[in-house]
């Protein structure tokens, strides 16, 4: 009986310390030191409306915008597929040796080639045809961005070299020079594009 009483007291104490005090203290300090990150690295338009987060992919579709990687995220109730749904992250969970995987990749590669007017059978970057781990991957590879550049330039009626130099400027190198990969944040790239080329021409 004494063991049960002691366990109950410890549970009450630990639930308050671990479940209330700890997260609240961290929240308090975080809000003080890093308010923007703590709120979710949100991106605000000039009129104050929130237009997303730097860290979360958006499902860009217009030819004048760069497109993110394929997404396997789910509908809010988890019952079906809803790409780029920030409320239900998910990978595809398709095995590498399945006909499904070969079909997914083949279809995505064909669509990518058509969209970017690449010759049939030309090689496409692996990240452009595979679903990301979260379905919300904000980045694409440099190879992927460079292959999309001519399409974006044409839709915006600007010189492809302008777009390519923008990619070079926006790209993230490996952190501290060696951690992770070289990549391009799609949202940042598209916003930079909107700045240098009139937005109206980005519409499909």
């Amino acid at each position, binding site marked *: 009986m004494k063991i049960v009483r002691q366990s109950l007291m410890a549970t009450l104490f630990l639930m308050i310390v671990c479940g209330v005090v700890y997260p609240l203290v961290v929240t308090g300090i975080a809000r003080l030191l890093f308010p923007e990150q703590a709120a979710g690295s949100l991106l605000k338009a000039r009129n104050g409306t929130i237009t997303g987060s730097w860290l979360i992919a958006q499902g860009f579709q217009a030819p004048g915008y760069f497109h993110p990687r394929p997404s396997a995220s789910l509908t809010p109730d988890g019952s079906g597929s809803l790409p780029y749904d920030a409320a239900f*992250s998910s990978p595809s969970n398709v*095995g590498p040796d399945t006909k499904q995987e070969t079909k997914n990749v083949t279809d995505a590669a064909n669509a990518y080639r058509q969209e970017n007017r690449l010759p049939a059978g030309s090689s496409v970057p692996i990240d452009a045809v595979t679903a*990301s781990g*979260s379905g919300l991957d904000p980045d694409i590879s440099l190879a992927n961005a460079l292959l999309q550049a001519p399409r974006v330039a044409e839709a915006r009626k600007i010189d492809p070299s302008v777009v390519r130099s923008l990619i070079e400027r926006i790209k993230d190198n490996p952190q501290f020079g060696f951690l992770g990969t070289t990549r391009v944040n799609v949202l940042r790239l598209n916003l930079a594009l*909107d700045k240098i080329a009139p937005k109206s021409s980005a519409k499909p």
Partner: protein
Amino acid sequence: MIANDWIQILVSLGLIVLIAPLVGRYLAWIYQSPHLSLEKGIYRLLGLDADREMGWKEYAAVLVVSNGVFFVAGYLVLWAQGILPLNPRHLPPLSPEVAFNTAASFVTNTNWQAYAGEAQLSNLTQMLAITFLMFVGANTGLASLVAIIRGFVREGSATIGNFWADFFRFFLRAFLPACVLMALVHVEQGSPQTLSSSVTAKTIEGAPQTLIVGPVASLESLKHLGTNGGGFYNANGAHPYENPTPLTNTLEFLEMGVFTFSLPFFFGRMIGRPRQGQVFFAVIFALYVAGLGLIEYSEKMPNPLLASASVMQKTTPLQDGGNMEGKETRFGTTQTSLFSNTTIAATTGAVDGAMDSMNPLAVLVYLVHMFLNEEPGGKGVGFAGLLKEAILAIFLAGLMVGRTPEFLGKKIESREIKLAALSLLVTPILVLWLSGLSLVLPAGKSSIDNPGPHGFMEVLYAFASGNANNGSAMAGLNVSTPYYAISIGLEMLLGRFLPLLPLLALAGSLARKKTLPENAGTFRTDTPLFILLLLGFMVLFAALTFFPPLILGPILEHLSMLHQIAF
């Protein structure tokens, strides 16, 4: 592999080798110094007599009863989510079987998730139930190891320590401060930490977007430092909010390793034989590095089945190649390999990429790690498991030369071997029987997502993960059905406590024995020969027990992929 991959791997391994001995020394101080006044105050407040020494039976009873109360408290919060505050999205409570599964999962430090965090749990539940259980589950594991180590330290003693003192010392002097500090680093890098639960945005192209936020960073540091692994989001560590940069990815797998890899050094200091600690570290580090090598090789390998799709699979200056299905661009294959090898070896179970989409040889490594579960294994219990393997290996060596085996001056006799063997048998029985059963029952088969050997591996992986208290999943398998929620829920409890109780009994038995002086006939256990003996025993035992399912799963899949056979 390019130069960058090598640098990332070598720097990460180097950091583990550098940090682990220091933390081991700190942990030894924690358990060899008097109570702090803060601790005394807490013991008084809670009515705990932290100076009372416990025999193994009482220690085990307190451990089981307190964990039972933790479990019920966690279950009640999950069950009452609908009527509790801080639930602006009006999320309903979990179903009874999934709530049972979740409470069992978090109290056993498994963190298997049969629910999707962002879609099913309110912020209050994430804090009161999940964060609370993550802390106490991990802490219980470490406390139990300290008690087991006392079995080797003490001589002619009927007691093995006080559970509450063992529990609170680590919690207050290492675990909680480390979690606060690392949580802030995670926020700085981009993990949200707020009490609001969602943000409605309108994307650049004008579509509505619901961003789910919450106290993510405080869960994130805890999830890795405690080798817990339960994520705030469904995609776990692949989600950019949980793991925003390559730096957080690296910090996260180092957080998993910082306490677990330090335990051999802690052990060496506690028993006054630092060299013995180094020998155990060498064993687990060798298995860890071997696993990493095979995973990296496997994930960099181009998929022969995708040749017809004409896809660039090589790593070039413009892209990171290899198997990118289910992986995030910022990590690429190397950061994902480092993370996944550590998460399985340290039984965290967090993932930063889809386990279900990994190549077969990587899954082979994950399965072997979970079968062994000791390199370094979960908080405390992993290293306790390694001590058990050492006792059995020494017993085998003793049989070969016909001597009563001794380990660290303690005679290993019939009772010790029986207890160690009992603890060892739990894994094969739970994993193989439950996987076998699930492959026959319609309720087991209907949840399988992928066809062929991959589908078989989903089931085997689920039960290997539940038993090992790992918690990662090949997530295509639908585990929120009553069948899997209940069977894996029970398995996690059995997989946690069944092997642990015999080890506490073993410690009780060893503590009573005299410590014999070494003589010329003593088989030394701090030599390279012992490293090989222990490695050989572990690998041989796992191979003999698990060869058939490994052949039917990853090895069959690997060979069929090489021959371009798709399922």
